[in-house]
């Protein structure tokens, strides 16, 4: 895997971390909780190299 591709996985991990943090901090809106999880799905599957 090239350096640039590794950097892309790091970018994904950073964004995933931010969204996961926001999900944990979300207290009230079930709508937003669902949306966070939806957005996390492709990021996680990409980092796991599944898709």
């Amino acid at each position, binding site marked *: 895997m090239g350096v640039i591709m590794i950097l892309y996985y790091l970018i994904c991990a950073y964004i995933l971390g931010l969204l996961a943090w926001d999900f944990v901090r979300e207290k009230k809106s079930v709508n937003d909780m669902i949306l966070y999880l939806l957005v996390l799905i*492709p990021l996680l599957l990409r980092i796991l190299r599944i898709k």
Partner: protein
Amino acid sequence: MTFQVGVILVLMVAAYAVAKWRKLSVELSILSAAVAGGIAGAIVKTPPLAELPRHLIEGCFPYLDVMLVFSTATIFMAIVSESGGVNYVVRGTIRAFYNVRFIALLILMIIVLIPGALTGAGSVSLLVVGTPVALALGYLGVPKKKVAAMMFILAGLSAAAPPVNIWAMMLCAGTAIPYVGFEFTLGIPVLLLGTFTALFFGWKKEGTLDKNAALAAMPEVPKGMSWWRVLLPFLAFFGMVAAYRVWPFGTPIFGLPLEFTVSALVALAVSPKRIKILELSRNTMKRLLPLLATMIVVGMLQQIMTATGVRGLVSFAVISTPLIPLYILLAIIIPASEGVLTYGAAAILGIPLIWFFDSIGLHATVAIAGLSLLWPLGDGLPPTALIGRLSVMVSDYKDSYWSFLKTTWLPWLVITIVGILMVVYSAKLAFLVKWSM
């Protein structure tokens, strides 16, 4: 078959309507439509029930790269803004051009057109220069509603502008037509329509703010901010974009997300004030959540529409329409399809349309250029409204989305007429392609 697919389509629309009626968000309503379509399809095994989760998960992926662009670009601009760079630029623009309104408007228009023209994404224009330009327009006495409308139309035109027009590129790729000859074919209408839009929204000054009052009303710029501190991150970004254009075989492919990330790090390094990057990034992602989630659920919707045949039925209905009504319908179906499917619309409707136009003697390149003026308009339409929502966001416009959208009516109409006439008279406009080559 038509009946079966038609029933699935009706159920999807019904699920969307019920979800909206139950006051669910746009994103969850689209998700409901996708799931309902999938379950209805599973009854007739299109797709089989066991494959439904796979289709939904696979549907999360068409826009993953676009999501990364939006995320990194917005964090980049948030850093520039937080460091005081945005206010610094706006202050400079107002000071220099406040009294020459025509020039000020043209310069601001060009500033919005460039990033989108280079990257093919109106979102990049809005994310990179949207906030400072919107603020500058505000201080020039343009009300927020008009600012949002102007930003939306200009961002759309920037995406259509050469050298990179993603709709045209996708159509060329799908129809085996070379992506050449678009410079004047797209450049001339974009510049004319852009000038019209900028003057239409910006010419009339509202309010009584004079130059000094406007400068006084602006937020203070942090100590130590200077032109080079503002320009360096942008130079890093445009430098990387330009390097690949100038030395395509000597420059590695960075991709937009990495280019924005590098620029963000530069902005962070040269900021005159300390920025809490984690907190800023986290808040930015929170702000972006509805937009990112929209891209996920629209991908799911597309996947289910195709697996069930609904997408094919829609495409079939369009292709089956007789020629003259089809020309007129382009005004509706092209933006509407973009509103539902974003870039996917170019493939679903655009490719068969271009094949059809080509077969009846129209000039494919000019027809593609004409259609690609219409697609960006759809980026303001729900359910996705990606560019419309970004325009509202960067313009800090708080009123109803519909009142913003209604404000765009005249440029929208003019662009629609120009686009359709380019398709209809494409054979006569073939000289534009020749000029470009």
